């Protein structure tokens, strides 16, 4: 195992400890709490009224924002390696990144002009 990966051992210990602690909390609560099942308790909450059936539609705009986010997150994949070596790649890298970000901003401008960023 190289030194690079050894660092992750500590993360692994931390993950196990965190899972263990949350599990212990839930387990302890299981031992302590009362259980008194009644059908009315398992109805979903709608401010006291009888619940209506679940609707199958959500606003499409949420989905569009998720798509937009993917664009900007993939962008980050390309920008991060450049960002930690900006001075090594000098002005050549800078100009290339300016063009790349320019294209991205064009995309954002298109979406904006199409009215997708307006919350109707």
């Amino acid at each position, binding site marked *: 195992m190289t*030194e*690079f990966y050894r*660092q*992750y*051992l*500590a*993360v692994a*210990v*931390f*993950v196990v*400890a*965190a*899972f263990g602690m*949350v599990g212990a*909390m*839930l387990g302890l*609560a299981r031992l*302590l*709490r009362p259980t008194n099942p009644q059908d009315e*308790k*398992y*109805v*979903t*909450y*709608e401010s006291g009224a009888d*619940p*209506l059936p*679940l*609707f199958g539609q*959500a*606003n499409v705009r*949420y989905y569009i924002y*998720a798509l*937009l*986010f993917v664009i*900007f*997150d993939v962008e*980050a994949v390309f920008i*991060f390696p450049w*960002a*930690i*070596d*900006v*001075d090594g*790649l000098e*002005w050549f890298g*800078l100009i290339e*990144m300016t063009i790349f*970000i*320019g294209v991205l*901003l064009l995309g*954002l*401008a298109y979406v*904006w*002009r*199409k*009215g*997708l*960023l307006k*919350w109707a």
Partner: protein
Amino acid sequence: MTGVPVVALDPLFDGGEITWSVFGVVAIKVVVAFAFLLVAVMLYIWGMRKVIADMQNRIGPNRAGPFGVLQTLADGIKLFFKEQSIPSSADRPVFRLAPYLSIMPAFLMFCVVPVGGRVSILGHETYLQVVDLPVGALFVLAMSGLGVYGIMLAGWASGSKYPLLGSVRATAQLLSYEAAFGLAVLGVLIQAGTLSTRGIVDEQAWDGWASFATEWYWAAAFVPFVIFLIAATAETNHPPFDLVEAEQELVGGFNTEYTGIRFAIFFLAEFMNVITMSAIATTLFLGGPSGPGLGFLAADNVVNVWLMPVFWFLVKVLALLYCTIWVRASLPRMRYDRLMALGWKYLIEVAVLWVLVSAALVVAREEGWNVWVVTPIVAAAALGAFGVLYLCMPRPGEHVEEFR
């Protein structure tokens, strides 16, 4: 080309083999980090209630323990004794999994935060932080991204309307600000040239007034700092961005159907996120544990090695936490369309253009160009780009074909 960036690794793992004492050091650090986080959450909730009470001319919690300091503990213990109810329409495995998914990122993000300087535990030299990952900054971004899953799945698995609405809304909000958040972190990375949190903190260490006045290293990070604070507030669902649990509109948001201990875990995760984000902001922008030691003691005195860095770290984190409480007490909740507009129309544009500006400044410094000539030109170019972007937006009344 400088090639591969220098990676500052924790000297704990230098020795080759992983012995039991190395494991012991790791275990001690993990236990201390957990204790710190849990006690910090307890004190933060109490402090928040006290400070807001003061600002609203009330007394606040004052019954449990001295000054009511045990109030949070009492609330937590109460929740252990509450009956659980899982709605019959819920997706049970996912419903049970969601609290784990929501609290794990909050814990894990604290892993990479440098709390103190270089110390010696059980005969091992090590940094006072749980782990110094070579990609620490990316780890932070990954964890803040994972936090979305807990909220999304909790709302979806409840099989109920309001939690679903709350979680869809939360997901869109968190994703939107995730983009601005990442770009703000990018501003720091360009200046620091490393992804390791320890490296970033070392890079910001105090060099003396001369370099403060001439190099302007701090000035380039000011805009990302402001963007980071706004985006981090939105990421942690802290007011004024707490639309996730807007009671007037959504009953309770994604955790409406959760009761007892599972609700407590969501609550814990939310406040732990605030503390962890403050610690991350301290690391990225405020120099983490660096600060002056006590001058009248030797530099290798135990107080200067152990206590002073931790003291400076805590002071910085407390200052940020106080500000979040202040904001919580002062600002009303934002409207959803304005929230989205702020994220997409301003924060992302400003952050992306500032990345280019600060990169240009770094390159100019490297090439030896005159900073006083380059800075105005670059700033003007960025402002021009922002202006062009704004000019092609539809005016009020102008007809544009819209998606429906």
